[in-house]
């Protein structure tokens, strides 16, 4: 189980690295595009566009910083919140496997949600930070289920003593 978990986690780590590169690329291109918009707006005297462009640059920068600085501690915290050795026998192994997998999926989903948000902010669309936060809650609930509730069920049905 441990080997299988490591293989799956390595794939998720690669996805994480790819998403990080994608976020950097999109963020930098978004800032450059907003500078272009600012120059165009200032050429035709559109002040509101200038304000919007500067706001978009700031928001993209803040979103990238939140994604890079905020998400890893959240994932580490929800990983650390799961008991180290839940239940007994196969339940313990399955619980550890599921919680490790859910932590990886949660991390990648959160980063993906922020990537979508940054992409949306880059083209002046709506932000989806709320969805990213909802995915955090989903992840915490899933890890709670895998790490705590399954061993409790094992105890309840008499598998673990």
């Amino acid at each position, binding site marked *: 189980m441990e080997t299988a978990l490591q293989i799956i986690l390595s794939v998720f*780590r690669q996805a994480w690295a790819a998403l990080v590169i994608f976020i950097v690329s999109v963020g930098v291109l978004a800032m450059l595009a907003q500078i272009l918009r600012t120059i165009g707006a200032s050429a035709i005297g559109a002040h509101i566009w200038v304000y919007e462009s500067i706001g978009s640059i700031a928001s993209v920068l803040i979103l990238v910083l939140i994604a890079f600085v905020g998400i890893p501690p959240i994932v*580490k915290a929800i990983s650390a919140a799961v008991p180290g050795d839940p239940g007994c026998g196969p339940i313990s192994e399955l619980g550890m496997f599921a919680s490790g997998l859910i932590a990886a999926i949660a991390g990648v989903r959160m980063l993906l949600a922020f990537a979508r948000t940054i992409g949306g902010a880059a083209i002046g669309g709506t932000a989806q930070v709320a969805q990213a936060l909802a995915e955090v809650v989903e992840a915490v609930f899933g890890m709670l289920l895998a790490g705590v509730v399954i061993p409790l069920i094992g105890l309840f049905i008499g598998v673990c003593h």
Partner: protein
Amino acid sequence: MGFSLAANIYQQVLVRASSMNSLLYDGTGPGIFGPIMDRITLLARDLWGVLVGLIIIAATLAMIISVLRGTGGMLVGGSKETTVAVVSIVGVVLLVVVAFVAIPQLANLLKSLQPAAPF
């Protein structure tokens, strides 16, 4: 007999999975996502070039428009119009400096902040 067969199958799966693990990820790059990331990086570089070209064109046109506006203002004695035109030229130059100097520095900053996978 059935149990030993299951154990053998499990061992074979582990061996194959271990070899697949080294095939998928060598610890240096994005692994199976490498080809996708190469394409995204290539596309991003092309887009960067396009945007830089567009910024140069837009800045040049904006400065020409401002010079025209300032000249027109001087012609009709509109000192405020000329002042606004001069300030616009300075603003465009500042924006170009931000685009070509500050954004690459910000990109380097963001690259240095790239987090490793926390799981």
